[in-house]
């Protein structure tokens, strides 16, 4: 049986492996790891059902791995290898799979999630959108919140507030705070620390149940971004002193075994995926979309 700890550790080691692959020059493009933020999607996972839609963002590996136990498919997507979730077309931040979608443009997903919520309204399912604190700079966020409240949409907005957007501290980007902004729309807001999976679930279970009845909710988690924004671009000092659930759990009984299991699993996924041939886009390599100047 997969435990919460297994999931947390899978995400942790997956993200570490990515940074490692980047450092060795074995990954192309860019990636945003969720190191330090793993608890949020792991806590939410059992509160969301298969009929719920999840909208993820650029920092989405944890969101994906908490919903689908598929590190190989995700790594193949990031590395452009056979077995990739989206044929290697979308890469790290553009993934679509069974009610799960991520995209790399900040703020874009919230109105879309509101649309999905409108579609789902009355069915008992909800639309959940993950956004960061910095994304509250985008006007689309507010237009969507207004609609969600106005139309009683089953919309759950999960804010991973790590106090920074790329290199910009929240203090340079946000006047007031998220709670007050939600209050202005009459949207419920809950602020939670992201340190205890079970406590988060206890607090959120009743709130999320009412989202399903059409009462939108913004849940704001205080998290620490322990890694760089993307790769090797951290301008902060004192990152090593930030609170880290991983460090705090090292002494807990069973941790060392679970940690070794997750590490081994990720290592074997990396070995497996690295050995695969490049992905093919669609069934046919002569896909007309790939031809220069081809007519649509």
């Amino acid at each position: 049986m997969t435990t919460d700890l297994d999931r947390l550790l899978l995400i942790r080691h997956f993200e570490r492996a990515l940074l490692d692959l980047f450092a060795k020059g074995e990954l192309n493009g860019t990636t945003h790891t969720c190191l330090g933020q793993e608890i949020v999607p792991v806590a939410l996972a059992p509160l969301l059902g298969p009929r719920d839609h999840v909208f993820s963002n650029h920092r989405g590996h944890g969101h994906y791995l908490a919903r689908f136990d598929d590190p190989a498919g995700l790594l193949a997507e990031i590395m452009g290898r056979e077995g990739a979730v989206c044929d290697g077309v979308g890469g790290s931040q553009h993934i679509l799979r069974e009610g799960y979608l991520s995209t790399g443009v900040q703020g874009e997903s919230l109105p879309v999630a509101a649309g999905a919520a409108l579609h789902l309204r009355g069915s008992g399912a909800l639309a959940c959108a993950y956004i960061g604190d910095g994304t509250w700079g985008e006007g689309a966020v507010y237009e969507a919140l207004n609609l969600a409240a106005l139309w009683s949409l089953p919309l759950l907005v999960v804010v991973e507030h790590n106090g920074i957007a790329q290199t910009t501290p929240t203090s340079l980007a946000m006047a007031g705070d998220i709670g007050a902004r939600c209050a202005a729309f009459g949207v419920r807001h809950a602020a939670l620390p992201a340190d205890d999976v079970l406590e988060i679930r206890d607090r959120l279970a009743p709130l999320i149940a009412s989202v399903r009845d059409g009462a939108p909710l913004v849940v704001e988690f205080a998290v620490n971004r322990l890694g760089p924004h993307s790769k090797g671009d951290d301008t902060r000092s004192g990152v090593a002193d930030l609170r880290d659930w991983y460090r705090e759990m090292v002494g807990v009984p069973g941790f060392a075994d679970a940690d070794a299991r997750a590490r081994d699993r990720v290592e074997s996924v990396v070995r497996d995926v690295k050995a695969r041939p490049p992905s093919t886009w669609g069934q046919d390599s002569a896909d007309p979309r790939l031809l220069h100047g081809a007519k649509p």
Partner: protein
Amino acid sequence: MRVVENLNHALHEVLAADPRAFLLGEDLLDPYGGAFKATRGLSTRFPAQVVTTPISESAITGVGAGLALCGDTAIVEIMFSDFVTLAFDQIVNFAAKSVSMYGSRVPMRLIVRLPTGGGRGYGPTHSQSLQKHFIGVPGLDVYEMSPLHDNRAVFAEMIAAERPCVFFEDKILYTKRMHEVDDLFTWDLTGGLARVHVDTPPDCVIIAPGGVTHRALAAMRRLLLEQEIVCTLLVPSRLHPLDAAPLVAVAREARSVVVAEESTAGGTWGAEVAHALHRELWGVLRNPVALAHSADSIIPTASHLERAVLLTETTIYDTVLESLK
């Protein structure tokens, strides 16, 4: 000197020359100095003129337009040009319109800087070349950065024009050297048009924006050495409005013309250039102007897929050969 350093110098010059010149954008404060380092050192040297902003592309472009409306010079950096779609209203319906829709001319010194293009594996929402969406907007000038055009002169020109501009910067250029051209060729600059050529009249004229320069030169080299086909490359700094006269003068002497750009197929800048040349040279050109561009496709992330979609040296090489058949 690398292109990004030259661009950085240009920005330094603009801010130094005018204390009422502002630079706005996301994550451009030191020590980071912007996602592509073009703004490095500026916030340290001009703390009152460099403004780091929230992730609010529409608003910061509007703020730039507001500054320009009041007579200041505003340079706005959109981190990836893909996100300029969020500022489209401010650029097209406010800034470009304001220059003329109130009956008399309103000068506006607004430059929107747009790191652009693919080839870096950043994926479909971080790799596009959206120049074509800005072609033909009355009141809006479209420029593209080039390794053959000193950015200091280009910025001086954009500011002097007092019209809103979008300035596309192909990200691939940042780390390339300025004014570095293959030994096989010589180059010169007349007005805003750079010309790279050999001493014989060309078989084919390639017209390309700055971001395509290196791919075009690589194709020209192979065409010369492998096929003995002589090409002249023309790189205009301002893509729109286009000064067609000097292009026409060179194209008149050639057997074929190719316009190469990274944009995906459909409604391209090249089609606009081709139309201008056809109008002037109908009956003179031996073949229709040929277009080389990226595929009609989103730009995939994985490098092997991305390569199959984007304009490459080989796309240009093949298009030139085809155009001479």
